């Protein structure tokens, strides 16, 4: 009896270590496979330079900038809308309409990203092209609009949860003092829920940085450093998807592991940051 318990305990422990091992292994593989770049002292060139394999230039700076631009712009689009929706759910109409919107938002998380990309190509891109009268419609703007929609549920659900966590006694206190809804929001709910809101923003940003399909299908994938939201751009994620086809022995191929490593570090940093800020609300 004792023996069986012991074995079971070890099995469970082993499973956990194995699973955690995967987390570490991903990073290790990325680092080891990008070593040739670091060894050849090319690291600075690769991180800072332009991408032009015909001329032997393998810099991924345009892709880093592309990732950051698209993620940031999608955050700019999504944050106000998400905040507004969570205000709707928790404050303005917390009854039936609020619950309905919350269910709707939850359902949104079930929609595959490839669907957003598909509709983006055939609905959004032609309209952006016509509206802007310039370019092909495949640009940072289009990708950010779609991506903003994709990351909204994450933020909305997080914000709602943070607002809901504010103790009822505080809310009652504001009512007792004769405060309006707006005052309640500005002076109580928002400041109190801020750590949760920050967490939601960070997680959504991580999600936006890590998305592949939408960027691959809608952002145009050009290799130039983008100078405006109407420029075509390439993200680190789309770059990996495109270069996976290249010659295995080449430096070109090795750069995708560097891209993978950078993405891993960026998102992990985001998670740590989010953990830290989430801890603050409690």
């Amino acid at each position: 009896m004792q023996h069986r318990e012991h074995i079971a305990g070890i099995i469970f422990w082993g499973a956990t270590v194995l699973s955690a091992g995967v987390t570490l292994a991903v990073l290790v593989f990325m680092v080891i496979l990008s070593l040739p770049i670091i060894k050849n002292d090319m690291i600075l060139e690769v991180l800072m330079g332009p991408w032009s394999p015909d001329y032997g230039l393998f810099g991924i700076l345009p892709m880093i900038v592309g990732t950051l631009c698209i993620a940031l712009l999608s955050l700019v689009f999504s944050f106000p809308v998400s905040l507004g929706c969570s205000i709707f759910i928790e404050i303005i109409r917390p009854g039936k309409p609020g619950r309905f919107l919350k269910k709707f938002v939850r359902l949104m998380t079930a929609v595959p990203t490839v669907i957003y990309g598909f509709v983006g190509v055939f609905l959004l891109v032609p309209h952006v092209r016509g509206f802007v009268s310039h370019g092909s419609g495949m640009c940072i703007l289009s990708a950010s609009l779609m991506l903003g929609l994709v990351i909204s549920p994450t933020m909305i659900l997080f914000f709602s949860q943070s607002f809901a966590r504010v103790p009822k006694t505080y809310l009652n206190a504001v009512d007792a003092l004769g405060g309006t809804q707006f005052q309640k929001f500005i002076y109580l709910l928002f400041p109190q829920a801020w750590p949760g809101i920050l967490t939601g923003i960070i997680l959504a940003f991580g999600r936006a940085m890590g998305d592949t399909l939408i960027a691959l299908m809608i952002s145009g994938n050009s290799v130039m450093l983008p100078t405006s939201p109407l420029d075509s751009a390439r993200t680190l994620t789309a770059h990996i998807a495109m270069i996976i086809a290249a010659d295995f022995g080449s430096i070109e191929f090795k750069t995708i592991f560097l891209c993978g490593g950078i993405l891993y570090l960026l998102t992990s940093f985001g998670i740590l940051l989010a953990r830290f800020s989430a801890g603050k609300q409690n």
Partner: protein
Amino acid sequence: MGKNVWDMLLGFFAWCCAILLAGSMILIIGFLILKGYKAISLELIFANTSPLDALLFKQQVFGGLFPAMVGTFFLILLSMGFALPLGLASGIFLAEYAPGSIKKIFSLCFDILAGVPSIVIGLFGFSITILLHHSFNSQIFPCLLISALSLAFLVLPYIIKTTQVALESIPLLIRLTAPSLGATKLENIFLVLLPASISDITSGIVLAIGRCAEDTAVIMLTGVVAVAGIPKSIFSGFEALPFYIYYIASEYSDQSELMKGYGAAIILLLICSGLFGISHWGKNRLTAKTRFNY
């Protein structure tokens, strides 16, 4: 305590956002359905082969969605086969065995894994393939097995987290009943705790299944191909529904193919929302059944 201008502005802002969000989604889904409902038919899935022959694997289907759907199905089966035991065991460990500090470290680990972009997971799977190919057996290529394994890594953190949270939220009273009657820790876990949290765990598993069904980035790097028919073994290439949709969007050769793409998108949407619905419905029904009155 009257409604002043600011209150009205806040309400207006909130309503606008809600309508904007809901409206955009309805636009997207509506566009898809409007453009694609005409394509939905048995022919979309089975093309020129009779459905019965196709389902019994007697005949290959060419030009239909069936191979992609079968590919996705096998993917889900295999990846869950990898991820479930590992994830459940880890979740049990974290909830029942791990001391506080260790729990925190592992929890952080799995949060990080959950945050890793899917394409990086795919890249990891691809690297493993290269490693095995060069050092182990040169017959190993990106294939169904590798894709399933990589998908398992992708959904592992979700299963672990769901199991852990589900077990941790069991009320103390239930937790202590069996041990007080002499049951061992293991008996408690398998006979009391797991059944008590089965609804939450199942709903988490169903969501993970949904994640496997919709993912494109991971399988793109680890073995999905444009044309493969029904996979003959786990070491062969395969098709999958989300990749089919991506492929059609990038390179459809005529209207009929584009219509197939719309049809495939609708089917994938139905599958994923169906799984979501099952996970929610299952949660409500099972919770009702196992409600403890005390």
